[in-house]
Structure formats: C-alpha cells, structure tokens
C-alpha cells in the first residue's frame, strides 16, 4: 500500500457517481413498495363482495397520461439544456415539466371527485376501492413529492442560483421523475386495462 501522491496509476481511478448510485438504490426500494401494491391490486381483481365495479366507474385517463409521459421528454430537454450551459432553456423546459405534472395531478383530483361524490366509491367501499385509491394514491403521492422538488428548483432558477455545474444534480433528480412516469405506465395497465 502506498499513498496516492507517490504512485502514478496506469489508468485514472474512476468510480460511479454517488448521486446516481444513490438514486438507483432509492428507485429499487420504491419499486419494491409499488410491486407489493400492484400484487395486491391484481390479487383482488374480481374479489369485491359489493359494487361499484371498475367497469362501471373507471374511464381511461388518456389526457392525464399523455401529460405525465410528455413531462419525461420535457425534463430530459431541460436537463440537457442545463448540462450544455443553457440555463434559460433549462428554465423553460423545467417549467413545462412542472405544468404537465400539475395537470396530471389535477386530472387525478377530478377523477377522484367524480368517483367519490358521483359514483360513491371510497377506499372503504369495497376491495376495488381499497386497492384503487391506495395504488393510484401512492403514485400520486410520489408525483406530488417530485413536484415539490421541481418547484423548489424552479424558485431557485428564477432567483438565478442554478448554474451549469448543477447539471449532474438535475440529471439525478430526473431519474426519479422518469421512474415515476414508468410506474404510471404499469399502474395504468394494471388498473385501467387489466382490471377493468
């Protein structure tokens, strides 16, 4: 063993970035949580003892899904903008991501209002209500947390504090956002396609 300064290495000693590894680890854990809720959803399909049933009350949230999935594209554009030093581009696309996310949440809220007050489906109505609200709600919670982070970054951008060197951090955050979008694809398939 020797000290770093006294020996020259043949190749530079490069290890993965800790932000990336940390975020992938977090995503792995979150994936496991979602998997359990998805398994519960799938297991309880068709097992409710009373109505309402999915086919009676669920409508495909096409618009909301398009918004959320496009926000993956906008956040990608924002991050590459920042990595190339174009902070204004970053701010624009970042704002777009925020808006799309908020639209998604708004649509979810609208859907839930409709289900609760017009169709009489709550989390305690039957097994469908229990699994639906918990799975979609868990996802919406993750979207909300993501939006809070995005808003904080938005404010900091408007205050001029965000620079090119923060590109790595923005990219690590975008991994989380992409994960949230990917989970939505699974939730959509399970709830609105398989379960209906």
């Amino acid at each position, binding site marked *: *063993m*020797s*000290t*770093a*300064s*006294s*020996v020259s*290495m043949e190749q530079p*000693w490069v*290890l*993965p*970035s*800790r932000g990336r*590894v*940390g975020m992938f*680890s*977090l995503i*792995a*854990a*979150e*994936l*496991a*949580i979602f*998997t*359990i*809720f998805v398994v*519960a959803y799938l*297991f*309880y399909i068709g*097992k*409710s*003892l009373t109505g309402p049933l999915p086919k009676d009350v669920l409508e495909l949230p096409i618009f909301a899904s398009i918004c959320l999935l496009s926000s993956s594209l906008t956040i990608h554009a924002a991050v590459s903008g920042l990595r190339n030093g174009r902070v204004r581009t970053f701010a624009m696309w970042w704002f777009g991501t925020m808006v799309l996310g908020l639209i998604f949440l708004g649509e979810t809220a609208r859907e839930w209002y409709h289900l609760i007050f017009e169709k009489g489906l709550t*989390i*305690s109505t*039957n*097994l469908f*209500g*229990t*699994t639906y*609200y*918990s799975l979609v709600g*868990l996802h919406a919670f993750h979207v909300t947390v993501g939006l809070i982070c995005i808003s904080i970054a938005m404010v900091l951008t408007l205050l001029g504090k965000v620079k090119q060197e923060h590109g790595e951090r923005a990219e690590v955050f975008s991994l989380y956002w992409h994960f949230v979008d990917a989970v939505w694809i699974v939730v959509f398939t399970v709830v609105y396609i398989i379960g209906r």
Partner: protein
Amino acid sequence: MASETIALTAVHDVPRPIGTILHDWVTTVDHKKLGILYILYALVFLVIGGIEATIMRIQLIIPHNHFVSPQVFNRMFTMHGTTMIFFVTMPILFGFGNYLIPLMIGARDMAFPRLNAWSFWLTAFGGLLLYFSFIGGNGLYGAGTAPDVGWFAYAPLTATAFSIGHSTDFWTLGLLVSGFGSIGTAINILATIVCLRCPGMTLSKMPLFAWLNLVMAAMVLLAISPLTAAQMMLSLDRFLGAHFFDTLAGGSAVMWMHFFWIFGHPEVYVLVIPAFAFASEIIPVFSRKPIFGYPVMVAATVCIGFVGFSVWAHHMFTVGMNSYANSFFTITTMAIGVPTGIKIFNWIGTMWGGKIIFKTPMLFCIAFLFQFLIAGLTGIMLSAAPFDWQLGNSYFVVAHFHYVIVGGILFTLFGAFYYWFPKMSGRMYNETLGKLHFWLFFIGFHLTFDFMHIPGLLGMPRRIYTYEPGRGWDIWNLICTIGVFFQIAGTSVFVGNLLWSYFKGKAAGNDPWDAWTLEWSTSSPPVEYNFAEIPVVKSRRPLWDIKHPEDPDWKYE
C-alpha cells in the same frame, strides 16, 4: 515504499464543556460518531429486550405460573421480538457497518453523511415511538398498553375489531418510521462501497466485510419495502376503513403473511450476513491466514442474497398451500443451505493449517461456527414441510431462530465488540474478563436454547403464557429459565469490562492484533478525517504487503 502510512497518533482532546460535547454528538454527520450512537442505542435496547425475555422465562418456569397476566405476557413476546430485531440487531449492525466501512475502503466518510444522520435519528425515533406505547397506547383496559399481536402481527388479529385501541398502531408506525431510516442507511452503504473505494481497491480486492455489507444493503432495499407497503396497507385498514386484510369484506389474511414474510425471511439474512462479515474478518487474523476461498465466499453470499428472496413461504407451510407450493418452498429452503454450508467449510478451511490464537474475539467466533452449524441443521429439519407441520409454531422453531440470532449473530457481535473496541476507544479490554464473559454466556446460551428444542418436539406451541402440567414440558422449561441467569451474568461482565476498559484500559496502539485491513493503519481511535492521505492498495491485505514487503499478497492473488 518509504513513507507508507503517515502514522497518526490519537490526539486526546482538551476537556470541553458538556453542552458542547452533547451538541457535537447530536448534530454529528461523522460516520464514526453515528456508528457509536447506533451501537449505544442498540445496547440500551438489548438490555430492555433482555428484561422482557427474562419476564417471560420466569412466567414459564413452572406450569400455571402467575408471575404476569396473559395480557402482559403477550405484550412481552411482541415487544421482545420487535425490539430485538428492529432496535437491537439492525441498529447495531448498521452501527458497525457505518463505523468500519469507510475505514476499510480507505474513504473519509460515508457517501451521504447527512442522510446518515437523518437515518439514525429516524431509527431512534421509531424505537421511542414503539416504546411510548407502554404509556400512551390505549388497549382493552384503558391504561397504556404496548402492542400484543406478536412481532409478525398476523391479520386479522391486527384489525380494529380484534385489536382495540392504538397499541397495534404504535407497532405499525414505529416500524414504518424506522424502516425509512433503514432504507436510508442501506442506500448510504451501497453508494459508499460502490463509489468511494480508494484507488486500487477493485471490488475483488475489498475486504469481505465490505462485500457482505454490500449484499446486505442491497437486500435491505428490496426486503424492507414490502414490510413498509404492508404496514401502509394495515394503517389504511385501521384508520381509513380499507379492506386489505379485512376477511369479512373478502380480504385475505394470507396476503399479509405473504407480504410480511417476503420481508421477514430476507430480513434474517440481512441480520446474519453482517455477522458472517465479522467472522470473516476475525477468523483469518486469529488463524494468521488469509480467508480460504475469497471468491467463493463472495459468490456464496451473493447466492444467498438472491435465493433468500425465494424461500419466504416456509414460514407458511401450515397455512394450507397446495402440495406444489409446499414442495417449491421446501426445495428452495434446502437449496439455500448449500451456499451457507460452503461458508462454514471455508471458515474451517481458514483455520486449517493456521496458528489459532484463542483470544476473546476468536473464542466467540469458534463458538459461532459450532452453533451456526447446529442452527443450520435445525433449519434443514424445518425446511422439510411435513416435519414443519409438526415443528412449526412450536418451541422447536423458537429454539432454532434463537440459535441463529443469539448463537450465531450475537456471538459474532460480541467477538466484533472485543476485536474493534481497541480501535474505537484506543484502549485494550481486559482479556480475563472477556473470557469470563464468554464462558458464562456460552453455558447460559446452551442451557436455555439446547433444551428448548425438546418441548417443541413434545408438542409445546409458542406464544403461550402458560402450559398444562403433565405434558412432559415442565423440566425443560425450568432448565431454559435457569440458563437466562447465566446469560445475564455474562452480559453484565461484558458491559462492566467495556466501561472499565474505556476509562482504565491499557493503550491499544494502532494495530494490537497484527491485522491486515486498512482500519488498522490509522490511529486508535481514528482522527476525524480517518487518513492523512487516501491510501492506494494492491491486494486484499494491504497491511500484510507493508509488513511483508518480501512476500506481498498481490503476487499470489
């Protein structure tokens, strides 16, 4: 190779006001201080969990005893199990990992020091929340009560219909909160090992301790989350009237079991793999030989990590799964015995041909080998589903898992305490007292847990606050209880030894054991920044290379 290490001697601080010291410890993000906080926190709960166990064993010393009521007894076994797993074993292993991993891989701290602190305080708060239930819970009699649903809290006993008041909620929420702390620490350990190794330390050159903690951290990420999810579901049931586990609404009690044990089984590997890590560091040093079969040890551990996720329903053999499911979980459980056995053989292979030194850490590790062998074999017995139909949920299972956790994990933990105490405190412990601790505890452990297998074989179920006389169980329960007092004596000697040695022990120096991994190259205790210069390594035993420049390891690996 002139200026190998800049030998750092410990600087003992000038006395500071107590307020400053407390503030320093409460706000620290230093992995060494957080490691010690985890360890001290766990030791306090070890004593509390031990008291809970002692109360149970006194109640069971004779049939139809009236030492405690059934309600109190049921709280005792629930709290004992929950405490020992979540607030003793996990924190203490995270503590040792936190302290040692950066030192062993030549880093200055963990990857995310603030996350580290957050995780510790979250875990600590979870434990306090759980224990607040003793005064704040609201059970059947209106006074404060702790949860009494068993540490695995089967549904629908945990439903509001059967668990009145909030005692169960303290269990759910306390563990939910500390579960987030565990995930935080696991992320930290994983990122630290993957991203902060010193130059030259490829994955195949890092100490087995680091490898095993890496596998453990990966398992935590995937194993704790199912428990978190299940606890969220249970809370939704209890607070918002959801029906996840509500059998009257068509819900499934068995689903809770599946979710719990998908956590619960990998959890026991999460607990035992760091214990293997301790043994893998201590046994080579006290046999004066490198670990036998390093690549196989890594492969076996990774194998255990994967296969460990496929065995969970061996906890559910009696639940009425069909014969194909029962057969599947039988073979996966038997299969995991293979890599585990290989590890035992490799440890014996390490000692073989060596020069074994019987200091206290090694005594505990040799006993670990003997006891873990037995624990593994009783596990094989339980893996045969029909045999489990008799032995499951009986005292045989209780004996088996205590053999693993106490005989396996706690013994290597004691070994680890003695081995690294000189590094953490700068002082040597008293070797005679260490050996006294070993023998007292060894005798107590075997009195309690060897003979505990027998009532299980003779039909005694677990979680009963009393039992009928004349079933052939009386004498064995008596012997088991007697063993408890030897264990208490041994543990008292241990605590006394550590305390006394911390203040009065001989100075230890950097490397009292003539060991080979990087933590022994810094001062005892290490300075805050760990190393004067980040080391560069060429083999698995960097200090061996320095001490034996004519015959370094990197020529042979």
